[in-house]
């Protein structure tokens, strides 16, 4: 029973961050129809930037985020405007090709700078534990959970009640009509992509403490994010956060109850099962 609660707690905590990762991808898909296959490599980039800042200035990843978030947001804006935007509206596969290419560039760029050895970025909270009755959770996971949910709620409020948020939803619902309102659709798409990459920088810092990193890990994050987004119904806010929790929990159960390699497969198994019965994703109605 303790083991069960333990797995559940860990899954929920990590799953919230998966949900956050997926919100970024879902927003981008919603406004420009782009599925970014270099998503996970941008997470890598965020993590390795933290590593670099640690080596150079001994910064804690949480502190580094103050630098990596604006830098990655800017990178996101540049990448969308100069690389992805010219492809949007052409064949879907061209954008897929482009982001896959970007993935390789990022992965090998990181490999060139940091080498292929697994590395760690220490954090002051890395080994701290929080004991709640029988359940022991790691403090970085708690921080990840709190920050992810706070950001998700913040995003939700932003989408509902600011002009920028309403512009994002307008472009998602009818881009032509949005243009007729005087909304600069390409600009909204660019900012949304930048926002998504900025969120990845935060997620990177949240996932980093205690996690060994290596340049080739990006694809794993991309795949996990895709699972969550598809589970959540691509653009549904609540669905995506729920999808994050489900994938996080199944991963935690997999690694605790099954062998390591088999455990890593559990999320995919659960995913396939859910999609068999609910091919439209988890949610019943769109909330955007």
């Amino acid at each position, binding site marked *: 029973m303790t083991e069960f609660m333990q797995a559940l707690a860990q899954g929920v905590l990590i799953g919230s961050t998966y949900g956050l990762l997926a919100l970024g991808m879902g927003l981008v898909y919603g406004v420009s129809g782009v599925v970014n296959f270099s998503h996970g490599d941008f997470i890598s980039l965020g993590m390795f930037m933290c590593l670099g800042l640690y080596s150079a200035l001994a910064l804690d990843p949480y502190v580094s985020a103050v630098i990596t978030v604006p830098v990655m947001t800017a990178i996101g804006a540049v990448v969308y405007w100069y690389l992805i935007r010219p492809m949007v509206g052409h064949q879907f596969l061209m954008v897929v090709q482009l982001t896959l290419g970007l993935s390789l560039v990022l992965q090998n760029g990181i490999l060139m700078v940091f080498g292929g050895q697994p590395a760690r970025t220490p954090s002051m909270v890395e080994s701290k534990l929080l004991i709640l009755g029988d359940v022991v959770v790691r403090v970085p996971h708690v921080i990840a959970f709190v920050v992810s949910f706070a950001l998700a709620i913040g995003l939700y409020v932003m989408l509902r009640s600011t*002009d920028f948020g*309403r*512009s994002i*939803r*307008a472009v998602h*619902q*009818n881009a*032509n*009509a*949005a*243009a*007729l*309102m*005087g*909304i*600069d659709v390409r600009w909204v798409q660019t900012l949304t992509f930048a926002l998504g990459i900025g969120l990845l920088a935060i997620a990177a810092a949240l996932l980093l403490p205690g996690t060994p990193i290596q340049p080739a890990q990006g694809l794993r994050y991309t795949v996990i994010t895709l699972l969550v987004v598809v589970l959540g119904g691509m653009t549904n806010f609540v669905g995506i956060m729920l999808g994050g929790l489900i994938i996080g929990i199944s991963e935690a159960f997999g690694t605790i109850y099954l062998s390591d390699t088999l455990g890593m497969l559990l999320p995919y198994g659960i995913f396939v099962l859910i999609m068999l019965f609910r091919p439209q994703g988890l949610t019943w109605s*769109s909330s*955007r």
Partner: protein
Amino acid sequence: MLEIEHLVTGYGGVPVLHDVSLKLGAGELVGLLGANNAGKTTLINNLSGIFTPMSGRILFEGQDVTRLTARQRVELGIVQVPEGRMVFPEMSVRENLLLGGINQRAKPHRAQQMEHVLELFPRLRERLGQKAGTLSGGEQQMLAIGRALMAEARLLMLDEPSLGLSPLFVQYIFGIIDRLHKEGLTILLVEQNLNLTLRHAQRCYVLERGRIAVEGSSDVVKNDPRTRSAYLGL
């Protein structure tokens, strides 16, 4: 107020409009008639900056706006009520109206303008929190017009506002158009509905397969045999 000079435009290099010229004075209510596929929506989308013409010029109050973006044109007050209404279905009536007034010029007075629109369409006030997608066709048309007024339109272009509405709603919407015209708004009314438009507009243009076939005061256009033949495609 608006002058279109020798406009040629189309899709993928194939012209749909050939040498279209048209003029609209300030405060005028002008009809643009034409059968299905004549090129009415194409013209209006070139005016809105959704597409740019292959050649020709568009002047708005003397300023050449041919190469301006859609956003810049909204900022000038060139506002379209699109064919099929195109409300944002998953957003509330209130959010749709707020989006209408999102341009820099209109934004500072959004609250007053919203009050004005809700006085014009009391029906929308009752439905403020309702999702636009759940409104009836007539109510969506009210919302689409209200949204354009939120943008503080100076030239209002309506693309087939009667399309798919019950006769009662058509009458109501045309009553609103008349009222806006009386209040001094310049209006370009795009319609397939010949008699209705001739009754409300001062002047009309008839578009036939991408060319202006007839133009003049509504009486002249009404009695010109080419008007009927443009419609029947003879």
